[in-house]
């Protein structure tokens, strides 16, 4: 071989060397696979035992729970077993409430699993910390709150999102304080989780909520609007109305939805007044709100849109709204009118779900 002055012999030796390494790797991977497979079988067995243990605890309460102390405590010092036990407890906790939840917490305390969870909070890997936060939040380890609060500013989204959720789980509405200074976007998923966890809103929250509505972070505003919808915070109607002029379309859409949710007698008027200045996406949302309001005052406005608006998507919605408001005749006459465009006729038929055969 001339290239790189490598001889065929040397190349052969190199390949042989690589082959040896590949063989060693094969043995390694096979060995580890068998080990994992064995562990998997264990886990399945353990999983059944833990399920049994948990169900016993829930059904029979603390006294009868210790029916088979030997078989369970035999593993209870094994770290893999403890991890699985913890995982199962956290999982079960989500499914139950009241006394059952207390039993689960008791198991958590009885087996001293708190130690494991708190240890995770001191790990470096984000997913381990996040897992730890989930566990302490789920098992309501109050002592961990200050530590969790410190994770609100963690660089990993995984960690700070989990910390946000945990804070709300522990403190309810007060746990949302982090919104005051939040600069990162809150994902839809996270918003849904947070909203579910907030169970009530204190009466003197006005100032805080107003501040959130003024936030530079659109996702904070959106979350606040959703909170208002959930808790019917009618006193903020006018502030929400102001948001119809917000620069971000997504905020305006949420504002329309919130106004509809906090509806009063002037809402239809407010929405139709704002309508001409909005983008088509917001307009669609306004029509949807009008549809939900079932307010006959908007019929003329809708008829105007039916004739003049250029977008089929909006027209379909308008037609459906008119249909739901009981204006079949108008729609039929419009469909039968020879001057109506083919597209308009089709839209009307579509919205009326007319059967073809």
């Amino acid at each position, binding site marked *: *071989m*001339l*290239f790189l002055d490598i001889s*065929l012999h040397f*190349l*052969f030796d190199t*390949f*042989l060397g*690589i*082959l040896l390494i*590949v*063989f060693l*790797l*094969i043995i390694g*991977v*096979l060995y*580890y*696979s068998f080990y*994992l*497979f064995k562990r*998997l*079988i264990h886990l*399945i067995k353990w999983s059944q035992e833990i399920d049994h243990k948990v169900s016993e605890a829930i059904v029979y309460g603390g006294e009868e729970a210790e029916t088979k102390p030997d078989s369970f405590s035999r593993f209870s010092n094994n770290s893999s077993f403890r991890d699985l036990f913890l*995982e199962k407890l*956290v*999982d079960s906790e*989500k499914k139950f409430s009241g006394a059952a939840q207390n039993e689960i917490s008791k198991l958590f305390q009885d087996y001293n699993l708190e130690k494991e969870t708190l240890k995770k909070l001191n790990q470096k890997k984000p*997913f*381990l910390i*996040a*897992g730890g936060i*989930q566990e302490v939040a*789920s098992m309501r380890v109050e002592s961990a709150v200050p530590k969790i609060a410190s994770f609100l500013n963690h660089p990993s*989204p*995984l960690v700070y999102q989990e910390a946000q959720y945990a804070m709300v789980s522990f403190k309810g509405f007060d746990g949302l304080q982090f919104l005051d200074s939040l600069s*990162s*976007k809150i*994902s*839809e*998923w*996270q918003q*849904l*989780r947070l909203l*579910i966890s907030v169970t009530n809103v204190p009466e003197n929250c006005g100032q805080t909520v107003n501040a959130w509505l003024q936030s530079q972070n659109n996702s904070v505003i959106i979350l606040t609007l*959703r909170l208002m919808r959930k808790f019917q915070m009618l006193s903020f109607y006018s502030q929400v109305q102001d948001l119809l002029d917000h620069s971000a379309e997504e905020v305006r859409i949420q504002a329309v939805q919130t106004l509809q949710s906090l509806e009063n007698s002037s809402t239809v008027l407010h929405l139709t007044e704002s309508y001409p200045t909005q983008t088509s996406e917001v307009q669609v949302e306004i029509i949807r709100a009008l549809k939900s309001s079932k307010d006959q005052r908007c019929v003329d406005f809708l008829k105007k849109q039916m004739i003049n608006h250029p977008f*089929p*998507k909006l027209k*379909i919605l308008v037609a459906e709204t008119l249909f739901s408001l009981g204006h079949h005749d108008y729609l039929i006459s419009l469909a039968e009118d020879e001057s109506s465009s083919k*597209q308009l006729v*089709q*839209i009307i*038929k*579509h*919205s*009326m*779900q*007319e*059967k*073809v*055969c």
Partner: protein
Amino acid sequence: MLEFSHIIYEIIIWLFLIYGSAVFLVYGWIGIYALGAVIRYKKENTFTDYSIIASNPNAPTFSIIAPAYNEGMTIVENVRSLLSLYYHNLEIIIVNDGSKDDSMLKLIDAYELEAVSFFVQGEIETNKIREVYKSKNPAFKKLIIVDKDNGGKADALNVGVNISSGEYLVCIDVDCILEQDAILKLAKPFLEQTNKKLIACGGVIRLANNCKIENGKVTDVNIPKTLLGKTQALEYIRAFVLGRMAWSRASGLILISGAFGVFDRKIVLAVGGYDRHTVGEDMELVVRMRKYMEELKEPYEVITIPDPLCWTEAPETKDILKKQRNRWMRGTIETLWKHRQLMFNPKYGKLGMISLPYWFLFEFLGPLVEFTGYVIFIIFLIFGIINWPFFLVLFALVISTGFLFSIYGILVDLVSHQVYAKRKDFFTLIGTAILEPFYFHPLVVKAGVQGFVDYFKKSHAWGEMTRQGFNQNNQDLPFKDRLWARLQLGLQKWGTFASVFFLLFSVGIAAEWAWYRYSFPAINSSMIGQNLLLNNFIFILKLIFGFGIIYLLINLIKESWAKTLLVLAFTMIVVSQYLLFIYFSESRNLLGADILYYSEEEMKQILEASGMLNFQNIALIIILIAISLIPFWLAAKSSFKAKYLGLTFLGLGVISFLIPTQLFPLNNITSISEFDQNAAKSKWAYFLNSNLENVVNDYPELASLWGETNTFEMSSEMLDKEFPFWRKETTADFLGSYLNQSEKVPNLVFVIVEGLGHAYSSPNGYVGNFTPFIDSLSSKSLYWENNLSSSGRTFGVLPTITGSLPFGKNGFLEIEKTPDHFNLYNILKSNGFETGFFYGGNSSFDRTKEFLQYSKVDHIIDQFSYEASYQKLPASVGGESWGYEDQAVFEKMLQIQKPISKPYFDIILTLSTHNPFLINNTAYYEKMFTKRVNSNQISNDQKKWAFENKKQLVSVLNVDDALKDFFNSYKKRPDFNNTIFVITGDHSMPEITLQTKIDRYRVPLLVYSPLLKESKHFTNIVSHFDVAPSIIAHYRSKYNVSTPSTVSWMGRGLSDNPRTDQLRIPLMQSKNQLIDFGYGKYHLQNNQLFILNNMQEEIINDDKIFKKANESFKQFKNMNSQFYNTKKLMPDSVIVNFMKKTQPKF
């Protein structure tokens, strides 16, 4: 050539090794990266509560689009399975793509469907929608069934996209079974997006074969029963759990499986939906969506999640599997070709710089490289280019790496989701991993290669290049228009052909230049490179023009003939380019029409002895043919849309005829060596021109068309115009004054040393003195330093040196029936001499034997005359030996030619200094070479030459040594003292770079004899033509030997003074090349005149002399032509009478 082919093989082996290493690294990276991604996903989602969106009315709407074609058997169940998915905001769109079965009736019946008015919002162009159905039953309100005209999967999906109203589209195959929580799991990444827009998301697909399915749900997971199914289960693990996860983590994913993927509807609509013209619509859509986002410059991602969310039936018969893989390969090619402008385009970020190149290099080229790799390595193994251990270790490495990757996939799968958790299934998977490389993998590779071939065969869309046959519409046109249409089509095709030819030939030129640089480090590579390029480009353009016209004309008659002709001719031309330059570099000779003058037998012997006819070289030629043929074959399948490229090539061809090549830098510099000048020439152009000239020479009437005359002037000494060379014998006895008269008629022995040039047999030669014995002998001989042979190869030496004969058309020996003539053999034999010819090779070569038999030589000794005790020259690798070594020839001569009472005349022709210069006892002579080079006899300038030509010079040292032994043995014989020796070379070796053009013919001439009165060194120019006349004159004058009174000698006899006014020496370089002429102190070659100043050439511009020299040369050529026409040198009676009259005297 052997070395060249070895380098080519090495390059090939290295290319495969580099590719293999790249595959190794890339898959290593995939393995590591995927493991990280899988672990991260799992940890992140351990406690995910999907229920928060399952029933949430604020969650986004997902539209499932499932195209169905003839799925009547299962469609009702499949739809039921979809309806049971956990997700609130769901829309299920089933698109019936014009099924021919009862799918629609079954659906209508099962789901209480009724056709409704439906306004389709999307604007992607599709085939016609027949009806849109919705269910009367509110339980199925999520369901929309669309019945449409058949248009293929992509078209059906586009209809679904148009109809859908959800924010995200879930595109699936209708026969897939989705996990109940599939949408929940897929929705999460979309809901989690913050800074980067998620445009597409895929999930892991698993095989449903052999799984237990109840109510549209997989209730018991089993590994498929058949081996084919099992292997696909393994393959799916590798593809989804490793490949996709790694690329997803690296943000480089460009494939979301068509069987199951989620897309952002707005982006799909913005890019225009699925491409209906490709079979790989799933990958193509993702590439287009990514391209769109890159152009918008918005951050985005395409991901896959490792949850097994979809179950599908994999093909369990080979035929269906092959078809599927064939389609995948075609889809890949189509997508890569369609988006080729993105490849390596930094504007498209990771997509352009990493994903597409990866896909091209590994996914597309992978099967092709693997297939060719196996073929080539097996050929190499058969031909002995690589050995068994090497092959086996490489094969074992490939197989074991594949196995490692498979079991690693199983491991990662265990870490991730433990789909196959049964002990039996786990072990079956590992067993399958062992069998996969032997059973499944070859099938997949074969299907991939077939897909590649099918793509080009069918070639329905090759981007700008489209298949444009002469269609039916054109056939109906009037004749004139039809002709024009055909011409246009021909030009379009010609553009492709010419481009491919230009490209491939250019590669050949580059290879030629690189090869010279490698083989001859001392050459002026940049100058040669420039000229090679220019000369060859001019040649190619001319050729393209010529072939273009022929092609277009034949194309008018029949397209397929024209294409076949071109493919074959262009392949032959490209392959020959390699052969021609390798021939040049091996022999340092340009190959021309001389190839025509070797018989089949001779050609075989040349090829065998030079080691050309071995497997390696044949394999190389096969590879070269394959490499050239495939692009031309592909070119035949396609053409450019416009005819302008074809026209441009033709135009350039016309211009190329007008470019004066004499203006090229190298063509006018004489200080550059003959070798360099030849190296810079286009070998093909030379070959072609030489053959054309040959045709013209064969048909003189053609030459007369150009007004060339064939007459010569009658000179005073000509006896008859019919026999232009016939004249009175007037040669004086020059040798008489230097040789003592012996009592007994002296013996005559000629030693003609193959390839003995002056350059390396004299201290004055530019290479130096590598014949110490000959050199020492020259100081005891009559030594003509400036002697010329008559030919550049061996074919000329015997007729010239023994008969001073003209050449005829291709050398005297080539004339089929040897014309009657006088030569030393027949004159001396008729006087009673014993005659002999001693040679180690085959005397039939160059028709030497016929000449000797005509001369009635007593002992014709050639390779068939030796006993086993004599040693042959070594054979080259894979070839045969040329014959017996020089030592054997000399020994044989001493054995056969006994000291006898009557005089004898013998010629010994040596052999070992012939290409490939293989000798016995190489080590000994190499040592001698080293010693010689390091001695003070070789100057520093000469050393450079010596090292460059070591192999040749070692063989020269060998022959010199053999000659020394020969003389030492001879001296011990009684007849030595009464013998005249003539020692000379037949020509210079062209394999040792020639400094000047005349060097080719410059060989030493020594007359040595114990009868010599004195030694003398002559510097005047003589030639081999002078030898026979002088010898005859000497024997006539001193020993009363009967000699003819009229002769046809070309030479005037040896002399001691510069007879520049009389010297006329025609020199024939090869059997078809008579372009050199020695005219006094001038050397005429082609149209260049050189002055010889102590044999140093310098170009001069002297019209007068040029004209005279040219006329003289022409006079000779015409006389020669007259001789060739009549094949007679003198009247028959002259020879008959002489032979009759002359009686043996001894």
